[in-house]
């Protein structure tokens, strides 16, 4: 394929930061007419930020977006659509209370706030039928559709806007493979008409089937762009991983011989999101849970802590059955579960209450503890060196890292037997991270079973004794020892068979 000289969309020197976090750093990127350009990268590599910058949802902190060679400033998605940049979003852009027909008309070209024009509807019906959507009626409310049906509508909604650049941000994740094939046929037809396609997917075989060029992103930077087929899997994965040196982690300890299991899961499940899952954590062990976002691992932690109704299977703690009736039962001393939630701002702390009041919340309801006795929190607070301007101040006055210390301290006061942590170091400074790592290792040595969900594979490699990788609701691989490498974690997260000895295409 020859590349015409003028890219439909390009960005030059674009940086996007959210506060102190830099999501995109000095990125140059081009997308030409008639090509499918795939973007690869792990969670947080900056893919979605890139798409949102090009589609006008986010404005770049610095740098310029060009549409057909001309610099443009988008005030919102409407401006991007006006130059033909149309995005199918990962988080759907359908309005739940409106019907399919109304959603297709919403913001359709030429309508604005005036009289709605239904001219595109026959074409929409035709497109919907082509991707197995014959059963989706225009009169149905979107909130009554399944996620897959929503994605089919989303595809059609984008196509009837006559895009010059079509952005697919994981927009086929809920579709089954035969529908995906049909969507891809439509996408290829668009490409052949000269439309540029930007494509994010976590399914390697989809990228292999569809992409002309591939760009790999890591830590907000574009690492490399190459033609599909020029690089093999292991090279691509190495680009995604990069080289990072870390002295953050405490040394691993050799497990004691004859260590007793503390937590044991037997066919624990919450259909359909979590498939039957079994594993054991022995005394002294830190076990990691990895995988892409939303593959069931965070739901599993909530399930173990009793936050979900209708979980199945057995949880054994020191050999006896744990109740699944909720947090109050789970935190009693005979069960001894503690859960550090993913969203500490919303789920872990009550922002308007003082640090002292927040600390007391976990111990309340435990008859064997006096929650108002602050000596029970002091050891962990000292251990973690909580920096505060007074324990009577609202917890919202603390930085993110210090807030997480409060969450940890309030649960550690209960001396839990099993500590469940959902990504406890996300968005936290390096020093606090190191403190938390050391604390976790120390707790493990004292006999606490630690189950650590992490989106940072460095933690999974260097802190955990064994890591289970989730894909589509279940464990696809369990890695330990030599096998516990970044390559293997990413490979398993994408559900590619063992990277070292396969070059075949994985089935999702």
């Amino acid at each position, binding site marked *: 394929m020859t590349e015409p000289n003028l890219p439909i969309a390009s960005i030059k020197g674009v940086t996007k930061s959210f506060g102190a976090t830099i999501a995109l750093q000095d990125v140059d990127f081009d997308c030409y007419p008639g090509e499918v350009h795939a973007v690869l990268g792990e969670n947080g590599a900056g893919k979605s930020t890139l798409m949102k910058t090009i589609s006008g949802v986010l404005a770049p902190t610095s740098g310029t977006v060009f549409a057909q060679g001309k610099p443009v400033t988008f005030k919102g998605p409407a401006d991007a659509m006006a130059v033909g940049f149309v995005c199918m979003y990962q988080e759907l852009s359908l309005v739940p209370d409106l019907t399919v027909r109304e959603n297709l008309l919403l*913001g359709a070209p030429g309508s604005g706030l*005036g009289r709605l024009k239904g001219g595109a509807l026959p074409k929409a019906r035709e497109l919907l039928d082509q991707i197995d959507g014959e059963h989706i009626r225009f009169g149905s409310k979107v909130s009554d559709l399944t996620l897959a049906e929503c994605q089919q509508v989303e595809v059609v909604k984008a196509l009837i806007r006559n895009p010059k650049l079509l952005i697919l941000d994981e927009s086929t994740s809920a579709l089954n493979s035969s529908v995906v094939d049909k969507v891809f046929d439509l996408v290829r037809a668009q490409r052949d008409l000269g439309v540029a396609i930007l494509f994010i997917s976590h399914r390697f075989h989809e990228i292999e089937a569809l992409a002309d060029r591939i760009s790999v992103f890591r830590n907000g930077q574009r690492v490399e762009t190459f033609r599909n087929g020029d690089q093999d899997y292991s090279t691509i994965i190495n680009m995604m991983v990069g080289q990072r040196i870390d002295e953050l982690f405490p040394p691993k300890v050799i497990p004691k011989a004859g260590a007793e299991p503390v937590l044991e899961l037997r066919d624990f499940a919450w259909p359909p999101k979590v498939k039957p899952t079994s594993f054991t954590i022995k005394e002294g062990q830190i076990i990691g849970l990895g995988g892409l976002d939303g593959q069931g691992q965070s739901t599993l932690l909530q399930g173990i802590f009793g936050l979900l109704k209708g979980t199945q299977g057995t949880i054994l703690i020191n050999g006896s059955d744990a109740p699944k009736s909720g947090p109050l039962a789970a935190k009693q001393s005979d069960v001894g579960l503690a859960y550090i939630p993913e969203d500490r701002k919303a789920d872990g702390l009550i922002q308007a209450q003082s640090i002292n009041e927040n600390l007391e919340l976990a111990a309340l309801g435990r008859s064997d503890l006096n929650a108002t006795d602050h000596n029970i929190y002091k050891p962990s607070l000292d251990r973690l060196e909580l920096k505060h301007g007074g324990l009577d101040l609202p917890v919202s006055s603390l930085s993110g890292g210090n807030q997480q210390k409060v969450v940890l301290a309030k649960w550690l006061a209960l001396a839990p037997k099993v500590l469940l942590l959902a990504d406890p170091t996300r968005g936290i400074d390096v020093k606090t991270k190191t403190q938390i790592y050391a604390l976790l290792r120390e707790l493990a040595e004292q006999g606490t079973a630690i189950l650590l969900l992490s989106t940072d594979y460095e933690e999974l490699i260097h802190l955990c004794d064994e890591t289970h990788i989730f894909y589509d609701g279940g464990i696809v691989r369990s890695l330990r020892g030599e096998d516990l490498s970044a390559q293997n974690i990413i490979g398993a997260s994408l559900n590619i068979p063992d990277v070292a000895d396969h070059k075949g295409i994985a089935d999702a």
Partner: protein
Amino acid sequence: MRDFVTAYRRELIAAAVLAALLVFYLITHPRGASTYVLTIWANQCAILGLVAIAQFFAVVVRGIDLSVGAIMALTNVVGSHLLSGTGIDLAFGVIVVVATGAACGLLNGLLVVYGRIQPIVVTLSSASIFVGLALILRPTPGGRVNYDIADAMTLDLFGIPTALVLIAIIIFAFWLPFRRTGLGLGIYAVGSSQQAAFQSGMPVATIRLAAFTLAGVFAGLAGLFYTFVTTTGDAGIAPNFTLNSIAAVVLGGVLLRGGTGTLIGALIGAFILKTIASLMFFSGIPSLAQPLFEGLILAVAIAVGAADVLRSKHRLEVFGR
């Protein structure tokens, strides 16, 4: 047809309830079914109906307007000063009254959209401002209104109460065409999912602004019609109408979480509420006990509305199933 019934089941239920109540009312009324009785009934209902429409526009974009009664009081007072003339003067008066309502709504909208303050806070404070203005303009009830236009608007046309004709004009000449515009669709999109509306390229700020302005316009129309019915200006009518407007939209199937419901539903809710109040007037309940019963009915109506919110998909993520 199936989609229609599913989509408008709340309105259909409310309409059935209204029909039953109306029949019951006409049977109980000492003077029986007559144009006179129907006209009185329709006038009372139409006043609340217009305020309920105002409330509907605020609620549908996931807001609430606690100033609709106050706007009504202000426009009523303005009307009592400007609607006594004839011809051009009268037309000018009508325009100023409605424009006053629109300006009040626009002010609310600007504070909500650009001031980024919650609608409940904005309208709670603006309500005091509007009532304060009304009190300055007319400290005690009074004023004079051109009786010709007042009669024309509040009696009947060939046996049909004029109020019902006006309501029909609002539905057919305004609401149904409006629903087929981008703005008409946009208010639902913004109320249902602001992010989705934004990502679809809708001008979210403009739409919310327009919705609050429309709320002001209809509160102004309510004030205008109230002036024709009572032929006086009274700054003290605000609280009652604000509360009843919220009850009316809930009764009419408009969910307070925004994004659903129709103008017609809000109208039906208002008509139900007023009919119940009128029924009570004839039912022999001691007049001192009437607020108690009205309150009970409102509480039940709001509880029913809230139950519907629970049935919707807004459940806690955790503790799912």
